[in-house]
């Protein structure tokens, strides 16, 4: 019975998540849009207002289509990460998981995609280049 309950909770979670993906405009749109002094601002869930004037006027963004608005601190970036070298404890063996891989002057690095999902961005230096890895 306990097992059955667990399955039901999981199924419910999948259904809710599925609905989010099927109709992304509801209920995640409808944020306050403030038009003042020729500026267009949009207010997120934390009350922070973002100036989207150029996005709308120059790039044709529709203010109604900005979604989630969970605030700038909800998804913190990874900062200056460290890396495992081959052979080091913690370095993955065989695995079918997805990675973001990149190369510069013969040096290669890989990020597990499931780690990037909860951070979206990693800020780092790769050799002499300041880079941001984004998913």
């Amino acid at each position: 019975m306990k097992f059955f309950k667990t399955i039901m909770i999981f199924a419910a979670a999948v259904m809710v998540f599925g609905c989010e993906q099927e109709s992304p405009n509801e209920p995640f749109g409808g944020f306050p849009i403030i038009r003042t002094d020729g500026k267009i601002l949009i207010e997120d869930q934390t009350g922070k207002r973002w100036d989207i004037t150029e996005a709308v006027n120059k790039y044709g963004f529709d203010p109604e289509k900005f979604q989630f608005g969970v605030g700038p601190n909800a998804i913190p970036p990874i900062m200056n990460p460290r890396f495992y070298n081959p052979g080091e404890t913690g370095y993955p063996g065989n695995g079918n998981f997805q990675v973001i891989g990149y190369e510069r002057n013969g040096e290669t690095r890989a990020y597990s995609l499931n780690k990037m999902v909860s951070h979206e961005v990693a800020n780092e230096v790769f050799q002499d280049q300041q880079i941001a890895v984004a998913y």
Partner: protein
Amino acid sequence: MYSREIDGEVLTLSASGWTYNNTFVLYDYETESLWYHLQGTDGLTCISGFYADRKLEEFSSVLMRWNDWVDLNPDSKFLKYPQ
């Protein structure tokens, strides 16, 4: 993967909490400009704020299975997480 250098400054990029067309809208800590990967273009375009209309260069990266990646790149480093 993008450069985060512009005019000799180094930006710190982060998720703004917004998405648009199912794509994250990024912002930088330094100026709170908004950055977005416009469809059909390379790099990140500043769509609003101090760096409006400027671009951050894109560098190539791939999305693939670890097994395939490490076969091709046996010397590859791997992200340590948590730090």
